[in-house]
């Protein structure tokens, strides 16, 4: 093991790091600047449409963790009435199999990724909490129609490192805290 090549390799490496000193940083200042996530993002929540759901429990059967709890009773028109639709997102691994398997598109992955809570119990989402709302928007995962309406994802590959600047499409800090997009 000789100390070969007289330190030329070290000098080359030093030159490269020096060159990087003049490249713009690629990091994003997170809470102020947010990148646009993928249209198919499997955010950490689910969106449930009560009007479309027939209570067939296909989602519950396809869930590898057995997280989805559905209780139904037979209604007046010989249909299922959903009494309870509860998802424990604390145990959910957001694989999306339930969304893919739903035959009536009554379930969708959420768009938000900021769903941290202080208590595990708060992660169990009930029927009301799972509904579509201002802060709970569906993503286009396995839902091509929704996918087409969402903005284009920001990609680091398309970011021009020679020109620098913010070529990444960023979403400025929204006024409403907790709004994920």
């Amino acid at each position, binding site marked *: *093991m*000789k*100390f*070969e*090549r*007289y*330190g030329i390799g*070290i000098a080359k*490496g*030093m030159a*490269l*790091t*020096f060159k*990087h*000193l003049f*490249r*713009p*940083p*690629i*990091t994003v*200042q997170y809470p102020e600047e947010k990148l646009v996530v993928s249209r198919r993002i499997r955010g950490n929540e689910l969106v449930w449409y009560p009007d479309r759901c027939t209570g067939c429990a296909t989602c519950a059967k396809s869930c590898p963790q057995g997280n989805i709890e559905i209780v139904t009773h037979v209604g007046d028109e010989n249909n299922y009435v959903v009494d309870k639709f509860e998802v424990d997102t604390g145990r959910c691994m957001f694989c999306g199999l339930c969304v893919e398997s739903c035959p009536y598109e009554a379930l969708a992955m959420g768009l938000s990724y900021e769903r941290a809570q202080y208590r595990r119990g708060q992660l169990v989402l009930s029927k009301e909490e799972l509904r579509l709302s201002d802060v709970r928007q569906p993503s286009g995962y396995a839902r091509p129609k929704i996918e087409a309406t969402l903005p284009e994802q920001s990609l680091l590959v398309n970011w021009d490192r020679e020109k620098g600047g913010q070529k990444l499409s960023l979403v400025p800090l929204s006024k409403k805290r907790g709004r994920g997009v």
Partner: protein
Amino acid sequence: MTLLEQFQLWLATMWPEWAAYVTPAIVGVVIVIAFALCMVIVFIYFERRLLGRFQIRLGPNRLGPEGIFQPIATAVKVLLKEDIVPAKGDKWLHWLAPLVVFVPVLMIFAVVPFWEGAIFIDLNVGIVYVVAISSVSAVGIYMAGWASNNKYALISALRMVAQVVSYELPVILSILGVVLMVGSLSMSQIVAAQTIPFILLQPLGFIIFFLGAVAEMNRSPFDLLEADSEIVAGFHTEYSGMKFAMFYLGEYCHALAYSCIIATLFLGGWRGPLLPPFLWLLIKVVAVFFVIVWIRATLPRLRVDQLMSFAWKCLLPMAVINLFVVAAEVLWLPESLPWIMVVVNFAFAGALILLWSKLFTLGGGRVEV
């Protein structure tokens, strides 16, 4: 005569002798320590931002404009942390070690000339004092490693002792080259003698001193005692709160002190055209520190036996040869022709580095167990 001594003489005309002696000394101590600590805080911020930029990220930028208050926030955070002493550790040594590391490093600044005459005390053995006092902190680190009752800390402490002992020799020998040319050990004399910065007159001496200094202040690629991928945090694994802050400050103080010494010995100290001398020193110190951070951002670290053999097989013989060459040149070359010496020494340094790269291997291989 230094500014401090002038101040003392002036005070002595009004005050009793002891007060005239003590008061300026205290003022001087406060000024020097304030300078050192302020610069350390600046350095911490500078290093973190600079490393960030080397690694194409931003570095701390949250607190204050461009994050300039980040070191203060870090300091407050560290100071508020719980002080933990290992249950079976040596309590007294554990408490004493940070002081033993930190105080000697601060004492180095006593002999750093900031300006013509602006030196705390112009010892006639200034450079010897620097070498002597800077190795005391190794004792502190060994104390920390021993007192922690932690195997990682102990390994780190042992590495530290071996490293400091090995690198002290080439460092001293390369300083001797400078001393031979100046003919004095005093720091202010060394600065005064540098009409041409000694980096040009003694390139090899500079390289050896620089590498030795980097090793002595335990920074990459010689940061074996804090090799976080091997021995976690090394000797300060078991330290927290205020005591850890002392080590942290001590480390950066060490870096600052050695940057000052390198600037003084080889880069002409406060000498420079146009700008005020103090600013020149600062520029040089920051430049040296920039190179240290740059190296840290680029290079992997050496292994412990390679580190040792690098000191004993490469740096030490080269330093000895360098010393002989400088002695010969001082003896026989006419003093009026320094530029010949520049050319000769550069050629010589290049030849020696090539030769050593060809001849010597670094470190041992597998050990039979």
